């Protein structure tokens, strides 16, 4: 079954430390992977997508098909990065998006 796993429900780091939020997926086809973020009292919003190979707010994510992973990384975390992060998988040529359970990131001062 197509599934997204985020193994950490909670992640806490200090400001300025590197951060990595893990995401693993199971899907035999050609995946489209996304990271969504939800800041406190705000709606869910797209952070980045693998196909664009972009860096948003200092975050990057590389699709590793061999390890079926799409980990989100930032070299120096900021307090404003504290939020809920969801990894999502869109099946090839399909409109069904599968979300992970999310990781709550807290960046301490």
């Amino acid at each position, binding site marked *: 079954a197509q599934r*997204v796993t985020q193994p950490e*429900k909670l992640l806490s780091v200090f400001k300025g430390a590197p951060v990595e939020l893990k995401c693993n997926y199971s899907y035999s086809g050609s995946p*489209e992977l996304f990271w969504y973020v939800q800041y406190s009292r705000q*709606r*869910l*919003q*797209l952070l980045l*997508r693998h*196909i*664009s190979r972009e860096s948003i707010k200092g975050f990057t994510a590389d699709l590793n098909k061999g390890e079926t992973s799409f980990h989100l990384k930032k070299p120096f975390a900021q307090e404003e990065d504290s939020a809920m992060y*969801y990894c*999502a998988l*869109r099946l090839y040529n*399909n*409109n*069904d*998006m*599968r*979300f*992970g*359970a*999310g990781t709550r990131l807290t960046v301490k001062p």
Partner: protein
Amino acid sequence: DAGVTQSPTHLIKTRGQQVTLRCSPKSGHDTVSWYQQALGQGPQFIFQYYEEEERQRGNFPDRFSGHQFPNYSSELNVNALLLGDSALYLCASSFSWQPSSYEQYFGPGTRLTVT
């Protein structure tokens, strides 16, 4: 542009009742998807509407139905409510002619509580 809007914000219903949730997509968007987000979980895809038809459906029973209107707004209907239907219901809109970098814009959600 207010983005995606949903109404009502909160709703309390009794088991066995029926409920209708509403969504207006972001300006320029023609596709609406609905998600259910249970507490502590990620959103789960219910279905997607395009050109007033259900284009794709997730693993939800027929008690969940929807509709899309000519102005692209959408409704989610849930019949015979169960306690387990208590969740945040999210609407997301997108544009059908996007490139492959599919992007959805989410609404603030409707919190449904079934007692």
